[in-house]
Structure formats: C-alpha cells, structure tokens
C-alpha cells in the first residue's frame, strides 16, 4: 500500500456486526469499499446498516471532516475482492469458516495483497495454514463499535512478513486507528483476559450470587471497568462470545474458558445481546 491516502480500495468480507462497522469506518474515512457476504439477506440489509453506523459515527464526531465519504459496493462472492489494496475478513468466529474464506480471498487477490483477519482469538499461525502466502496475513482485532473505538489489537503471526506488518499500520492509519501489536496465541491479549472475566461474570449470575446490574455496577464503580463485563458481553454479541470462548477452550484446555451454561442457554433462545434487542439486559425497553 502507498500512503494513507483516501483512495485505497478495501474489501470487507462478512456483513455482520463487525463487517458493517468496519465498512462504515472505511467509507467514513473516504475509502472505496466492497462489502462481501454470501447471504442475500445480509446483502440486502448491508447498505442501511452501513449508512446507520456512518451517521452514528458522524454524530459522535468520529470521522474526519476534510474528505468526502467513499463509496460502498455490496457483492456476493469473494472474487469481488480482486484488485483491492487490502482485504479484511470479518466472518463468524469459527476457525474453519475463517480459514475457508481466507483461502478464497487469497486466491481472488493473489500474493502481495494484505490479508487481514478480524478475529478476537483464533491464532494467526493457525489461519495462515489455509493460505498459500501466510506472509500476507495479519490479525486485527477491531473492537465494537469499530468506528468509535480508536485503538485495535494487531497480531503478527510467526510467518507474517515485514511488508504485511508495515502495510497493516498504513491501513490502520488510513482508518484513523492506532494498532498495538502483540504476539500470536489463542485470544491474543485482550480476549485472553477479557473473555475469562466475562465468562466468570456470567457464572456469578448463573449461581445467583449477583444480578447482571450488580456485577456491572461493582466492576464499573469499584474497579473502573468502563462498561461492565455483562454490558460488554451484550455489546460483543453473545453468540460471538460463546464461539470465542470455545476457540479459547479448545486451544488452551483452560476450563475458565468453557462457555457458561447460562451463556449457551441465552444463545439457544436467540438472546444475543444488543443486536437482537435482548441479552443480559433488555434493549427494547431501556437503551442506555
């Protein structure tokens, strides 16, 4: 990639919570964005979801004012990523699915194109097995909402090349994000620490020792956690949280990462947090 100019074209794969947020961020920073999802329903909803988040970002004064927004194109197949200067994969936190999508993207873009996996915990070395040129692959753990949280976790795998390591910081600079680089491994830094705590917070609720409100009030007001672990769980999305915990449990054997039964029950009931209107809190009644 060249400078952090605004005419870079990005492909974002997966039009879910993170994919649409990253697309909104990139459009807001003036980039040309192709958002790819295989689901017709997700494609249909994508332009409105991106527009809504773009408006949110604008209202929160989180976008540069010195450039017009970029354009958004929605596509259904990975070959639409061809020609992009960087590709950001943001599909479900399922290692097999991520690997399959990254393999398809590597084939569509060819060697030398920065491939980013937005994952909260799958080791980059493991995902690198799926692509022909693992030196092009870097992990970037965007936080939700991606357009409001200016810092991201950057993961350089053991086989990540110097060119990709440089390119990812250029990419992030062009998105107004600050990347903090850490070593590879399940959950990296943020999820290894945070997911363990959130899972335990859920267990406290399951055991009946504290309500979600109580856990969050203590962690916020005594410990200084800005959002509280259970409100954070709702923001992450409970299905994604359960998937990420499973990824961590499978790879570490640490029982602290075994998804709480209460979490799994909520996912089964379709209570997925903010995005579904209900999780540990009810967002249709009271959105705070």
């Amino acid at each position: 990639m060249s400078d952090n100019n605004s005419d870079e074209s990005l492909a974002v794969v997966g039009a879910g919570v993170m994919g649409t947020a990253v697309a909104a961020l990139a459009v807001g920073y003036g980039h040309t964005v192709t958002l790819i999802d295989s689901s017709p329903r997700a494609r249909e909803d994508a332009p409105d979801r991106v527009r809504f988040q773009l408006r949110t970002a604008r209202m929160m004064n989180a976008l540069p004012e010195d450039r017009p927004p970029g354009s958004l194109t929605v596509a259904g197949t990975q070959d639409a990523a061809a020609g992009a200067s960087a590709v950001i994969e943001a599909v479900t936190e399922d290692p097999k699915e991520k690997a399959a999508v990254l393999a398809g993207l590597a084939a569509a873009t060819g060697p030398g194109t920065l491939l980013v996996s937005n994952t909260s915990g799958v080791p980059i070395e493991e995902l690198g097995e799926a692509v022909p040129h693992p030196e092009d692959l870097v992990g970037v753990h965007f936080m939700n909402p991606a357009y409001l949280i200016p810092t991201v976790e950057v993961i350089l795998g053991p086989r990540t090349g110097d060119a990709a390591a440089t390119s990812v910081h250029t990419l992030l600079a062009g998105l107004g994000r600050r990347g903090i680089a850490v070593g590879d491994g399940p959950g990296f830094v943020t999820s290894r620490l945070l997911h363990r705590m959130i899972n335990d917070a859920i267990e406290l609720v399951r055991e009946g020792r504290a309500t979600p409100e109580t856990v969050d009030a203590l962690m916020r007001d005594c410990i200084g956690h800005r959002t509280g672990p259970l409100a954070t769980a709702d923001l992450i999305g409970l299905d994604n949280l359960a998937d990420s915990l499973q990824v961590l449990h499978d790879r570490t054997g640490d029982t602290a990462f075994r998804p709480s039964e209460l979490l799994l029950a909520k996912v089964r009931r379709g209570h997925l947090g903010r995005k579904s209107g209900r999780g540990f809190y009810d967002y249709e009644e009271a959105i705070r």
Partner: protein
Amino acid sequence: MTTPSGRTDAAHTAGPLPSDEDVAAELLDFLAQRTRTRWEPDQDLFAVGGMSSLFAMQLVVHLEQTYQIAISGADLMLDNFRTVEAMVRLVNKLRSPAPGSTGE
C-alpha cells in the same frame, strides 16, 4: 401519490404545527418511557453514566419519523441531542410548514 391518499400523508402536518411545548412534552414522555427515568428539559442525556451513542441514534430516528424532518450535515451532531431543549430547537429549525422540502 394522488389526491385521496395524499390527504392521509398530510395528516401529520395539515393541522397547526405542534408548539415547542408540545414537542418538549412528547420528547420527555418518549425518554421516560424508553429509559424508565424522568429527565429535565435542560438535563444532559449524555453526561457521565448517561446514554450511549446507540441511544443518540434512536433519538435521531425518532425525531425524523415523528416530525417528518431529515437531520443531516452539520445538524447531525451530538450537541443537538444532548437535552430536550436542544432537540426542540432543532425540530423547530428543520420543520418546514411547506411541503416538498427535500430529504437528506
């Protein structure tokens, strides 16, 4: 749409426009209902411990739908939604009694 259905469409705006007091009362009701908390017209909704950016966007959508206005450009800034008073001013400014105003 042609004349008969045009009438339903105009129903919201055909009568006298709601006064600033009406808009303020409606917004205070909306807030009380959505947040289960009572707010003062000059109270900052987004002060520490207050509302999230998601709620701010709900306010934007609510104002647009209820008062048939389009909030864009420089008007789309958090300060315009911080208090009920600020929102009343915004509605007053953007509400056009004449039909045919352009959208976003």
